[in-house]
Every structure is written in structure tokens, then in C-alpha cells.
């Protein structure tokens, strides 16, 4: 029991994910800055930002259901911690709980639902448009993402546990090496971009169009929750891809640890580069893209996986 509490609160969970998430957030800002010929923020910048938000005022809106407004970021934050714990457990300790992939899909769903609930509770026009766009994004990328996850499940012999997928990869080589694996991995990276709300799919939070969208009315500690949750997604989403397609990380030797971290960082940097070399797409283009290109591509990967290529 104590062990699981440790998992949840300290190592792959809350403490580690916050600190590591903020560091990855710094990497994101730094790499973006370097791409744009800038120096970029200092190392502790995200820590300062989040800490500062804790000292600011929370502004609640009169005549709005502000219980939802307050509770939404907290639930979202909790669900993100849980997801990170589960993914981190299989990433670092190779222990899992039964059927954790299904659990992860639903927890990530909760995050989006909280974002929609919290922003639409304010009654602000921009927030409501942001909520609407977030919902449309959810509809468009969810199918592709689930099918991407199906590929390793099928290849590992219809196992929905992360640990079993890892064990399969240890025995038979990485899934990314197969034809279905590489297709699913590429679609998976695009889905990650959408899940993270990064350019080109930051349609829901488009700052120059709808002023930060869902987060517009949040201030102070509640905003800090959203920011932290957002940075934590940097931790577990690439990790999940590493586990599903690239064989995870093993502590067998020093070299394998470096390889594991390298795989993780590579995916992060690919995401950041995609972010920095594309403009934001329109919501209809995004839906078109996911339903006409990404989902069929993922479906092909699933079919290939079933025939065993």
C-alpha cells in the first residue's frame, strides 16, 4: 500500500511529474527559442511561472456555476497525475495494473472533458468557442489515437497491459520495426500533437484568435493547475509512445538507460520541431485531416497488424 502511495505521490507520480514536466516545458521553450534565433528563458523559468501564479488572485465570475469552474482544473490535474503514475510505473518499474491501457484512454478523456466543462462554465464567448473547438478536436483525434494503441495490442497477442506489451517487445524486437508499427507510430506522433494542443493543432487555445480559449478566464492558482497538468502531459504522452512502440526503457545497463532517455527526448524534440515549422490549421482542416487521412492510415496499420506484418 505504502509502495503505491509512493508511486502516486513521489516517483513517477506527482512530485516527479511536476518537476520533470516543468523541465521538459523548459526544453520546449528553449528549443523553440533556438529555432527562432532567440536565447530563450532560463532553466528555472517554468518553476518561477507556476510558483508566481500561486500568489495571484483567483477571479470568480458572478452568476456562474463556479463550483465547476474551481473543481475542473483540480480533477483534470488529478487525472493527469494518475495517468502519469500508471505510465511511469510500467516505464520505470515494469509493474502494471490489469488493463491499464483502457484506464489511460479514459483518464485522458477526463482531462479533455474537464477542460470543456471548466471553460464553458464561465459563460465567456471566447471560452465557449474554445470549449466547442476542444470538443471537435476530441472527436477527431480520439478514433485515430485508439487505433494507434490497438496496433501494439494486436501485435503483442491481444494484451491490453503495458507490461505485457513491453515483455513482447523484449522478446521479439521493437514494434516500430514492423510495417504496421511505423505507420501507427507516425500517426501516433500527430495524435500526440493534437492531444497536447500544440501547433498545428492548438486550435482550441489559439491565442491570437480566441485569446487563450478555455484558459482565458482562469487566473492565479487555478491557472497554475492547468499549466502544471499541461506540462505533465509532456511527461507521460511521449513515454507512452516509447513503451508502445520503442520497447520502453530497461535498467539492465547504463547504455540502455541512456537509450531509453534518448528515445523519449527524440520524440519530444520531433514534437517541438513540428510545432515550430507549421502554422495553425483551421478546425475543419483538422477534422478533415484526422478523418480522411490519419484514421484510415491507422486503420491500415491495424489491418496490417492483424495479418501480422
Amino acid at each position: 500500500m505504502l509502495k503505491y502511495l509512493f508511486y502516486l505521490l513521489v516517483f513517477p507520480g506527482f512530485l516527479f511529474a511536476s518537476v520533470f514536466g516543468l523541465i521538459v516545458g523548459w526544453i520546449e521553450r528553449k528549443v523553440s527559442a533556438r529555432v527562432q534565433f532567440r536565447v530563450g528563458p532560463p532553466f528555472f523559468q517554468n518553476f518561477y511561472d507556476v510558483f508566481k501564479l500561486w500568489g495571484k488572485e483567483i477571479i470568480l465570475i458572478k452568476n456562474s456555476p463556479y463550483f465547476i469552474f474551481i473543481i475542473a482544473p483540480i480533477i483534470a490535474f488529478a487525472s493527469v497525475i494518475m495517468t502519469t503514475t500508471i505510465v511511469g510505473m510500467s516505464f520505470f518499474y515494469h509493474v502494471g495494473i490489469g488493463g491499464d491501457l483502457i484506464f489511460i484512454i479514459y483518464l485522458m478523456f477526463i482531462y479533455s472533458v474537464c477542460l470543456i466543462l471548466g471553460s464553458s462554465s464561465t459563460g465567456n464567448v471566447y471560452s465557449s468557442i474554445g470549449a466547442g473547438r476542444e470538443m471537435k478536436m476530441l472527436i477527431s483525434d480520439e478514433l485515430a489515437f485508439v487505433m494507434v494503441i490497438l496496433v501494439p495490442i494486436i501485435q503483442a497477442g491481444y494484451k491490453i497491459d503495458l507490461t505485457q506489451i513491453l515483455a513482447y517487445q523484449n522478446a521479439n524486437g521493437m514494434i516500430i520495426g514492423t510495417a504496421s508499427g511505423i505507420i501507427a507510430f507516425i500517426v501516433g506522433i500527430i495524435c500526440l500533437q493534437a492531444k497536447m494542443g500544440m501547433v498545428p493543432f492548438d486550435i482550441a487555445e489559439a491565442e491570437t484568435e480566441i485569446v487563450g480559449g478555455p484558459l482565458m478566464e482562469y487566473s492565479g492558482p487555478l491557472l497554475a493547475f492547468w499549466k502544471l497538468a499541461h506540462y505533465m502531459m509532456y511527461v507521460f504522452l511521449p513515454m507512452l509512445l516509447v513503451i508502445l512502440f520503442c520497447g520502453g526503457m530497461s535498467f539492465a545497463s547504463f547504455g540502455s538507460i541512456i537509450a531509453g532517455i534518448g528515445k523519449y527526448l527524440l520524440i519530444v524534440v520531433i514534437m517541438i520541431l513540428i510545432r515550430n515549422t507549421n502554422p495553425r490549421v483551421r478546425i475543419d482542416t483538422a477534422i478533415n485531416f484526422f478523418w480522411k487521412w490519419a484514421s484510415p492510415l491507422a486503420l491500415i496499420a491495424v489491418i496490417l497488424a492483424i495479418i501480422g506484418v
Partner: protein
Amino acid sequence: MSKCRIPLGPFHPLLEEAEFFDIKVEGEKVVDIEMETGWMHRGHEKISETRSYTQSIFLVERICGICSTSHPFAATHAMEDIDNVEIPERAQYIRIFIGEMERIHSHLLWLGLAGHFIGYDTLWMWTWKYREPVLQIFEKVSGNRNHYAMFRVGGVSRDFDNALIPEIHPVLDMLEKKMLMIAGAAKDDPVLRSRLKGVGVLTKEDAINYCANGPTARASGVDIDVRRDDGLEYNLINFDVIVLPNGDVYDKLVLRVLEIIESVKIARQCLDAFPKIGGDYLNKVKHISPGEGIGRYEAPRGEVFHYIRSDGSNRPLRHKIRAPSFSNIPTYKASCLGIPLADALITLAAVDPCYCCTERSIRVVDKNNKKLEHNLLTMSREKTANIKKAVAGSEKTPIDRIFED
């Protein structure tokens, strides 16, 4: 689907200036759009009641910080038009050089902001990086990064230092190379194309009917360019007017990139001419005779129009200013309806609106109001009397004695 009203502004990150658009949408589709102006209205009328011709050039410079050469350019044209003042050749080249460098910096600014609006921050940062050397050239030539204060009636206020020419050439080469790169990137990038191509089309008929001008009209296939049509200084220079047919945001972007390249060529011609042409840079004009004058100039955003009526005193009687955005902004009605919200915003931005210009000063002076002068005169007399009383309560100063006599 129910209608929803989106107030865009007055403080919105898309608009650097305060402006208010009332957009009505169904879902994401724009069905109606209404603009409310007046947030930036400063009204130079009262200010300029005390401004002379030379001072009003500096005043019109502060109509807008981005095109701060275009307004003085047109205003001096208007003043020179009254008396047909001859401008020294060197001054003409300096004027063209300053005007073209400003066009480069303004177009680069728009390119960057357009990138920012569609979430392409890398494009923003890159173009603004290329813009920085241009501002440094301005600092070297005129002493300030913006608001150059170079214009006078009959010439320019300071000479161009020929020693700067070797420093400027590399910047121009760099700009030309990078602009070709951006034009190529815009052609190749599928996401950028999908975002801009066919968006917010302004047809040629609409452009003519709304009296649009500048890049907005040229991107819709209307072949107007004041630099070529009005002549004056630009008769010295060879350049092409770029006209594109489609009228969408993509064409406006490409047009501005091509215009930068054209401006680089014009600036090079000026630089080549500077060592050959010496002589005076200012033909001093002491008096402007009664009459009317119209001056215009092709600002980065379109035609700047100045009308000055003089009654022979040192102040204009009426000074009418029309900035390009004033004609270009109303075209949003023709190009924005029926398109998605995300597109509407970039379409609004695509005319490169300058609200400060739109709500500019209107009239500079009233000279018929004799009463005001009378008041001022009595007021100043009273003031002097009061000062006299206060200062020289007991003793009389030497000045007082003069007054007594």
C-alpha cells in the same frame, strides 16, 4: 444553428491597436460583421491650431508609427504643390531611399504579424529578425529607429552620409535572399497554402467599388500605384508595379514579399546615385502662397492623401488627411462574410489595417476664427500685467520702464 455574437476587441491580441469588431457567427461561420471605430481618435485639430507648416510635418509623422514617413511625404508634396517648389535631385533620392526602406520594414512587420495570427511564431520571429537591421540603418541615417523626422518643405532636413553606403549594401543583399526564401517557402508549404489560399477573396469589382488602394487593390488585380501614377520623385527610378489576380490572403502575402524585393532594387538604385549626385539637399521655402494643394504618396498600405489649403500665413487653413486604411478597412464587408471565424481574423489582418491612421487627425487649423487670436492676445496681456504686478510690487525693473515709454 443559433447565432452568437463575438465581440472582437477593443483589446484583443490580434489587434495591436484598440478596435472593436462585432462579429456575428453561426457555429464558426461569420454571418455579419460590424466595425465600431473611434477608439484611437486623437483629433489633431486643436493641437494644430498653433502649428506652423514645418511643425505640422512633425505632427503628421505622429499619425502612425509604422508608416511615419508616408504622411510627411504626402504633406510636403501637398505644400510643394501649392507653389510648385523645385526639389534638389539629391533630396529626391534621399526621400525615395527613406520611403522604400520604410516600405521594407512595414511589409516585414506585416509578414511577421500575419505569421503570428495564424500561429506560425517561427515566421514571425524570422521576419522580425530581418527587420532589425533595417531599423538600425534608419538609426544611422536619421538618428532614430522610428519617426525619422527627415522631411521638410523643399527637401529633406539632413543629408545622407555617403560613408554609410558600404554598410547598407550587405543588408539589402541579405533581405533579397531571405525574401526569395520566404516566397519559396510560401509556395511549398502545404499547411500554409491550405490556410491562406482562397481565403477572404476580395474580387476586382469589389475592390474598385470600395475604392480600395495599395496592396489590397493590387492583390485583387487593380493596377494602381501612386509612385508610378503621380510620378514626381519616382520618375528618376525604374521599377515594376506588382499586380496579382486572385485577391485572397495568399496573394496579399506573396505580393508583399515581391514588393520588398522590388523596394530593395529601388533602394540599390538610390545608393548607386548618391555618390554621383552632390549638391544641396534642401531648397529653403520661407513662404507658402495662398492656394490649394494635393499631395499623395504610396505608403506601404496604399495611397496617402493630403490636401492643404493655405491663406498665405505660416499656418495651413485646412489640412485634410486620408490614410490608406480608411479606404481599405471597409472591404472587410465584401471579403469576410460567409467564411469561418479563423479565416475572418486573418482576412481582417490581411489588409494590414492601421487604425491609428484611420482615425487620424482631420483638420489642422482654423484661421478665420479671429476671436481666438483676440482672446490669446488679451490673455497674454493680462498675464504680463499680472507678472509685472507680482514681480515688481515696489520697484520698477528696467523692462517696465521700456513698457512705460
